[in-house]
């Protein structure tokens, strides 16, 4: 009930924190996850590549 009153007194804050901050946080998390996946994948592929090199030598 107090949230109901608060959101009516501060509609712009409610819109910003509730919707826009959450949406941009979701985007930020997704970007971090994509970058992390890139790092992990590159590590794996390099590892495989190095093993092959050692086997060839």
């Amino acid at each position: 009930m107090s949230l109901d009153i608060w959101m009516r007194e501060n509609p712009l804050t409610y819109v910003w924190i509730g919707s826009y901050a959450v949406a941009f946080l979701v985007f930020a998390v997704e970007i971090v996850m994509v970058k992390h996946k890139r790092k992990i994948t590159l590590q794996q592929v390099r590892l495989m590549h190095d093993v092959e090199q050692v086997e060839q030598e």
Partner: protein
Amino acid sequence: MAINWFKYSAPTTFYGLAGKLVPWFAVASAALFAVGLYIGFAVAPMDATQGEFYRIIFIHVPASILSMFLYLIMAGYAALGLIFNTRLSAMMASAMAPTGALFAFISLWTGALWGKPMWGAWWVWDARMTSELILLFLYLGFIALHSSIDDPRRADRAAALLAIVGSVNVPIIYFSVKWWNTLHQGSTIKFSGTSMHIAMQQAMFTMLAACWLYAIAVTLARVRSIILEREKQTKWVSELPEVAQGEGKQ
């Protein structure tokens, strides 16, 4: 001069192309988000009935549109993969699923926050909202099904079937407000135009463009990792400068 489009449908060339495109899309997206937010909060006027709360529309509608279009494109790629057995199509479908799911989540979340002050309820089981929730579960089902099968080719085929069957849900979401009595209002963007003040429209379409560019950038960045992962045994991958770099570091 004829461009050989098939050249770009090969993971080998697409990997490099995507790498070049990602920063451009990312920068353009960030710029458009800034412009869209500026118009949305500084230029667009208050709404006559809903006051400031209507400003949620600038993220809610683009997120909803993206969640539906990304699903259709994902299902299209999945179908291409099934029919032509092209490697890249299936990889694109798996790269799009997480982004689509996040947009569906943002759509539901912002919708709930809009519904509470205006309608008086966070959530109602009306046809529009229920079908959008089903869309989120279809995305999650696609991701889970794909990860549950070890053989990537079989995983592609199974997930593709789910994506294709689930695409019937998209027109249901769009037309739900017409077909049934819902609490959700009708579409603001119709085939015949929009029912919105001009500055509000500009803010919404700028945010929509920003969301599109963001989705493209993040999908391309993700598909590069998927390509590397699934082609790691090939010669071209081991010859990539970022892979060969690993030499000597031991």
